[in-house]
C-alpha cells in the first residue's frame, strides 16, 4: 500500500548524522592538509586533531554488492563512515596511522575476478583523477557512444597517472556520450564527447502522433526544421523536413521528438576536447576546445581514442611547467605548437563557425612558424 501515510518533500537526510565524530568536532576548524602519498590526505585541525582521508577510484557504475563491500570496509576501519567526492571517488577516513596502513593494504588486496582493482587508491594532487562521465549505452536514449566502457578503456591505459603525482598539475578528464554533455566536459583538461554526424531521420508515419510539431521546429537552434506534409500509404500526414545543410547534428530535435532518431552506428563517434578548466587558480575558468573532431566508435576498447588521449596527456606532461594546467600550457606555447607537438592533424572542423566564432579568429600576427606553415610563393587564379 504505497500510497498510505504518504510522506513527501522531506528532502535529503541531514548530513550531520553522517559526519565522523572527528569531523563533527573540527567542523569549520581545519587548519591545513598534506597529501602524504597519492590518495592519502592528512588533515590537521586547529584543535591539533588529525584525520587521514583515503581516496579510491570507483567505476561509478556499480552494484549494491560493490557498495556493500565499501560499507564493510567503512565498518572495519572507519566506524561505518564514508563519503564520495564530487568526481565519484570514495573516501575513507581514519584517525591513526596504523589503521591507515592496514586500510591501504586491505584496499590493495581487493580485486575483481578479471584482476582489476576494486578500490585503487589515488586521484589526489598532480594526478589524473576519476573521469567524470555519463550513461552511454547502459541507460540513455541519445548517446553516440558508450560511457563507462570508454572510461574503463582509458583509465586502464593511463592507470599509472591515477595513483601517482607526476603530472605538472591536476588533470581533470570527463566523458559525455552526446552533445548534451551531462557533466563538465565543456570545462575539462581533456575530455571525450560522443557526437552524431548524420541528420535525424524523420518518421513521417509516426511523427504527428508522438511529437508536437511546433515544439520540434522550435527545438532546432539553427531553424533547420520546417513543417511539411507527406503522403504515407495514401494518407496525408503532418510531419517535418530537415534542411540537412543547416543541421549541426546536435540531436536536440530527437530529445523533443522520438520520431526523429539521430543515432547511427556508422556516423557516430568521438570528439576530443582539451584545455578547459574550472578552478580560478592562476587563470580564470575556461572552456575546452575541440582538437580532434572525429574518431570512429571502436568498442570495446576504443584504441584510437585511448591512443590520442595518452598522447595528449604525455605530451603535456613532458612540456608543461609545474602548476600549469593543460589549457594554460597550451596558451603559453600557442595552439599551433600544441598541434605540432601532439601531431594531431589540424582540420577545417576545428575552426569555429558558430555564434561567437569571430572571437576565435587570429586577428594579429602573433603566431609561430610551426611545421604547418608553408612559404607561399605562387597562387593560381
Amino acid at each position, binding site marked *: 500500500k*504505497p500510497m498510505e501515510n504518504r510522506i513527501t*518533500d*522531506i*528532502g*535529503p537526510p541531514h*548530513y550531520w548524522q*553522517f559526519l565522523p565524530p572527528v569531523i563533527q568536532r573540527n567542523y569549520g576548524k581545519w587548519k*591545513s592538509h*598534506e*597529501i602524504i*602519498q597519492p590518495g592519502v590526505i592528512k588533515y590537521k585541525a586547529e584543535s591539533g586533531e588529525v584525520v587521514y582521508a583515503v581516496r579510491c577510484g570507483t*567505476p*561509478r557504475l*556499480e*552494484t*549494491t*554488492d560493490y*557498495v556493500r563491500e565499501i560499507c564493510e570496509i567503512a*565498518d572495519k576501519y572507519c566506524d*561505518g563512515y*564514508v*563519503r*564520495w567526492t564530487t568526481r565519484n571517488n570514495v573516501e575513507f577516513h581514519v584517525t591513526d596511522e596504523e589503521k591507515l596502513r592496514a586500510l591501504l593494504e586491505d584496499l590493495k588486496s581487493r580485486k*575483481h*575476478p*578479471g584482476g*582489476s582493482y576494486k578500490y*585503487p587508491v589515488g586521484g589526489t594532487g*598532480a594526478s589524473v583523477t576519476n573521469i567524470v562521465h*555519463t550513461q552511454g*549505452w*547502459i*541507460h540513455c*536514449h541519445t*548517446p553516440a557512444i*558508450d560511457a563507462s*566502457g570508454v572510461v*574503463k*578503456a582509458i583509465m*586502464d591505459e593511463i592507470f599509472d597517472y591515477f595513483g601517482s*603525482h607526476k*603530472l605538472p598539475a591536476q588533470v581533470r578528464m570527463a566523458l*559525455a556520450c552526446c552533445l548534451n554533455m*551531462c557533466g*563538465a566536459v565543456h570545462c575539462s583538461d581533456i575530455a571525450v564527447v560522443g557526437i552524431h554526424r548524420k541528420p535525424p531521420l524523420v518518421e513521417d508515419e509516426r511523427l504527428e502522433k508522438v511529437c508536437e510539431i511546433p*515544439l520540434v521546429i*522550435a527545438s532546432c537552434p539553427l531553424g533547420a526544421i520546417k513543417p511539411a506534409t507527406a503522403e504515407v500509404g495514401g494518407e496525408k500526414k503532418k510531419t517535418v523536413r530537415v534542411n540537412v545543410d543547416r543541421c549541426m547534428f*546536435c540531436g536536440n530535435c530527437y*530529445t523533443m521528438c*522520438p520520431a526523429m532518431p539521430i543515432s547511427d552506428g556508422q556516423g*557516430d563517434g568521438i570528439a576530443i576536447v582539451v584545455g578547459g578548466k*574550472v578552478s*580560478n*587558480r*592562476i587563470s580564470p*575558468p575556461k*572552456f575546452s576546445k575541440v582538437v580532434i573532431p572525429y574518431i570512429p566508435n571502436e*568498442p570495446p576498447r576504443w584504441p584510437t581514442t585511448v591512443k590520442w588521449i595518452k598522447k595528449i596527456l604525455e605530451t603535456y606532461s613532458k612540456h608543461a611547467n*609545474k*602548476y600549469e594546467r593543460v589549457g594554460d600550457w597550451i596558451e603559453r606555447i600557442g595552439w599551433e605548437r600544441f598541434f605540432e607537438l601532439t601531431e594531431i592533424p589540424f582540420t577545417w572542423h576545428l575552426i569555429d563557425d558558430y555564434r561567437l566564432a569571430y572571437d576565435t579568429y587570429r586577428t594579429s600576427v602573433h603566431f609561430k612558424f610551426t611545421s604547418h606553415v608553408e612559404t607561399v610563393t605562387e597562387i593560381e587564379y
Partner: protein
Amino acid sequence: MGEVKKHDTPLMDELKSGPWPSFVDDIYSYAEKHKKQAGFDIMGQMELSYKNKETHWKHGGIVGVFGYGGGVIGRYSDQQEKFPAIWAFHTVRVNQPAAKWYHSSALRKLCDLWDHRGSGIMNLHGSTGDIILLGTVTEQLEYIFYDLTHQLNMDLGGSGSNLRTPECCMGMSRCEWSCIDTQDMIHEFTNQFQDELHRPAFPYKFKIKISGCPNDCVAAIARSDFSIIGTWRDDIRIDQEAVRAYVGGELKPNAGAHSDRDWGPFDIKKEVIDLCPTKCMHWDEGQKKLYINNAECNRCMHCINVMPEALRPGLDTGATILMGAKAPILEGAQLSTVIIPFIKTEPPYDNIKNLIYKVWDYWMENGKNRERLGETIQRIGLNRFIVDVLGLKPLPQHVREPRSNPYIFWKEEEVEGGWTRDVAEFRKRHPA
C-alpha cells in the same frame, strides 16, 4: 529468482581485464550471486550496442511517483523479447546528503531496497549529485518511494523542468579553505525549495551548486545556473614562520601534490610570486618575509594552494554569486557570470533565498520554453538583467571588459527632449 540466462558477451568481456575497476566483472558477479536476470540482460543489450554501435533504449517514457513531476527517468528497451528483464529500466534519482557523507547503516538499507526493488545497479553519484538507482520497472516506483521516505528518510531528487538536486563541495566538513558553510546552505536550500525541486514549473532545468572557495571543487561555475562561491574581503592570513619553512624546504609545496617528480627545490619566486596573476606578492629575500598587496589580489587561491601551512583565506568571509552556467544545448555552453561580488551568508540565508525567488519569478514569467537562465540573460542583456530585473547596481566587476561596440540602447527617459521629434521643425532648420 528462478532460472537465469547469461548471454554471450565477448565484447563486454574484454572490459574485465586491466587495472581500473571493471563494471562488467562487478555486474556479472552480482548477477550471478543474486541470480538476477536484469544483470545478464543489461550486459546482453550492451553487447548488442557494442556490436552495432547504437543505443537500444527507446526514447523517453514518462513515469514517476504520485504528486512529483520528476525524480524518475523512464526507460524502455527496444529489444523487449531478447532482454525481457530489462523491458523497463527506469532510473530513480535520490537526493544525496550534502557533500555525500554516509554511514554504512544508511547505505546498506539503500542496497537492500535496491536489491529488492531494482536491478541492484546504481551510480554513486549522478553528474548532478544524486544517488542514481539504475533500472527498475514502473510498478516498483511507488514502493521504492515509500521505502525511501519511510525507511530511509530519503527523498527523490530533481529531473525535468524544475530545480535540480543542489550540490556542494565538502566545505567545512574537511576543508580548511571553506569560506562558507556549503553543506548547511545546500541542506537549507534543498529543504526550502522542495516544491520547486519536485514539481516542474520552470521553463527548463535550474541548478544550484556551492563551492566553499574559488578552487570550486564542485564545478559550480561550469555547471549551475546559480553558482555560489565562497570568498573573503579582507587580507590573506600569513604565517611567516611557515613561509620560511617552505622556502627552507622543510614543508612540501602544494601539500605534496607533486611528490612523484623531481621539480627541483622549491623556488618561492618562480612558483608563487611570478605565478600570482595580479603580481601583488613580494618576497623579501633579506627580511625573509612575504608581502601581499591584498587590494590587488583577485583571490585566485594559487599562493594558498601552494603553501597551505602558511597562508589562509581572510576572516571577513562571504560569497560571490554567479549565474547562468550550462552545457552547450541549445545556444552554446556558458560559464556563470558574476552577479553579486560579495554577499554575506548567515543562516537561514534569507538574502540568497530572496535573490533566488526574484530570479525565478522573472524567469518563469519571461523565459522561453527550454531556455536556461543563462540564455535568458543573454537574450535580454546582462545589463538589463542586473539593473531592471534584479534592481542591482551595474559594476565593473560584472564584466571582464566594457563593450567595444558603441551600439548602446539608450532609453527614452535618459535623452533630453525624449524621442518624439517634429519633422516639420527639423526641416525648418534643415531644408531638404
